[in-house]
C-alpha cells in the first residue's frame, strides 16, 4: 500500500490521518496536523531542529516515516505545558532567533526524564544531537543544568 489511513497519538490526542508511505513524521505533524513546532532544518538527521519525543525518547522526526509512528506516543513542543525546562530556557536566555529551540527543548526534556541525574558527560552526549546556528550553547547548557540541579 502506498497510502495508509493511520491513527497517531500526538500530545495525548488521537488523530486519524491519511498519509503516503513516503511521508516523514515531520511532514505529517506540520502539514497535516498543523503542529509546526517541530522545525525543518537539514531534513537529513544532522541538525535536530525537528526533534520530538517518541515513547519517552528523543527522535528526529525527519528520520522517521509517519507510518512507523503507529502505536507510539508522540510528544511535540506543543504538548509541553509550563515544564521546568521551558521556564529555564526563558530564565537563562537560552535562545536568540529561536529556530533550534523546540528541538533543543524536546531533547532536554527527554534527557531530564531518562536521566534526572545526568552528569556533564551525559549532557554533552545528548545535546550534541542539536545544532544552534546562533551558538547559544553555553546558555542552553546552563538552562538544562539549572533544571537537573533543582531536581
Amino acid at each position: 500500500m502506498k497510502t495508509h489511513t493511520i491513527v497517531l497519538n500526538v500530545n495525548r490526542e488521537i488523530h486519524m490521518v491519511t498519509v503516503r508511505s513516503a511521508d516523514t513524521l515531520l511532514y505529517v505533524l506540520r502539514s497535516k496536523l498543523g503542529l509546526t513546532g517541530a522545525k525543518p532544518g537539514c531534513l537529513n538527521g544532522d541538525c535536530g531542529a525537528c526533534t520530538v519525543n517518541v515513547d519517552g525518547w528523543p527522535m528526529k522526526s525527519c528520520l522517521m516515516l509517519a507510518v512507523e509512528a503507529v502505536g507510539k506516543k508522540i510528544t511535540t513542543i506543543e504538548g509541553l505545558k509550563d515544564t521546568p525546562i521551558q521556564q529555564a530556557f526563558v530564565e537563562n536566555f537560552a535562545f536568540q532567533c529561536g529556530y533550534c529551540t523546540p528541538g533543543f527543548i524536546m531533547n532536554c526534556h527527554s534527557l531530564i526524564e531518562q536521566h534526572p541525574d545526568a552528569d556533564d558527560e551525559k549532557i554533552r552526549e545528548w545535546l550534541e544531537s542539536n545544532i544552534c546556528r546562533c551558538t547559544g550553547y553555553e546558555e542552553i547548557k546552563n538552562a538544562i543544568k539549572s533544571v537537573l540541579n533543582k531536581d
Partner: protein
Amino acid sequence: MLSFDFDYYKPVTLKEAVQLLETLEQQEKKTMVFSGGTELITLGRIDLSITEAVIDIKDIQECRVMGLNEKNLVLGSALSLTKIEKANLFPLLTKVSSEIADHTARGKITLGGNICAKIFYREAVLPFLLTDSQVIIAGAKGIKVLSIHDIFHEELQLEKGDILLQLETEKSFLGSPFLCIKRRQQWNSGYPLITICALKVGNEIRVAISGFCPFPFRSKVVEEILNNDRLSLEERINTVIEVLPGPILNDVEGSSKYRVFVLKNLLREIMMSLKVEV
C-alpha cells in the same frame, strides 16, 4: 518527505517477511529491507536511493533479541544502537556504537542497518570482525549461520531476499581488553576520518579499521606484522602501511597522505596503550 511512492509492509513474523520478499521479487518489484530506515529517508530525498516496496523488520521478534546464552551473546539486527549501548553487554561494541552519528539519531539507526549500509563506514561491523562472530541470515532457503569472515568482504554479501537476523559473539571475547579510537576531521559527532578498533586476545593484537579505505576491514597480514616480535615498533608500523588494502580514501575528510600519517599515529597509540610487547 520522499518524492516517490512505495508500498510499506510491517510483517510480524519472519516467515511472513521472507514470503513477502519472495512474492515481491516474483512481481519484479524493487524491494528494500527497512530497519532504522534512515538510509532510504536521507538518500531517497536526494534521489540516491529509490524503491518500490519496503519491508520494515522492526516487529520481527528474531530481529529484536538481545541476550546471552550458554556460549554466545546474541544481538538482533533491528536493535537500535542506543538500546545496545544502554544494555552494555559488549563493551567494545558500546564504545564503537556510541561514536556513530549522534545520540538522537542512534535511537533510530540499527545494528543491522549500519552493517548493511550503502554509506561505507559501517563502523558497527568492526567489533564483530575482531571477535570472529557468526552472522545469522534468513532467506528463501532457510536460516544460514556463517562466520563473518566468510560473508563480510568489504560489505555483507547478502543474496537477494536475504535478511540479516542476528550476530552471535562468543562470550569469552566480551571481556578482552580493547581500544577504539575515532578521529574526525572536526566536531565530536558524525563520520570518521579513521576509526580503528583493537582487541587484545592473549598476547596478540587484532585490529579492524573503517574510514581508511572505502570499506571496513580486518587484515590477517596486518596483524601478523603487528605481532611480529622480531621487528621494532617503528618497523612494524612502517611495514603495515605497505601491506594495507587499497584504495586509500582521498576526499573532503582528508587526503590519502594525511590518512596514512594519522593511521601510523593511531597504530602507535594502540600498541602502547594495549601494551603489546615490542
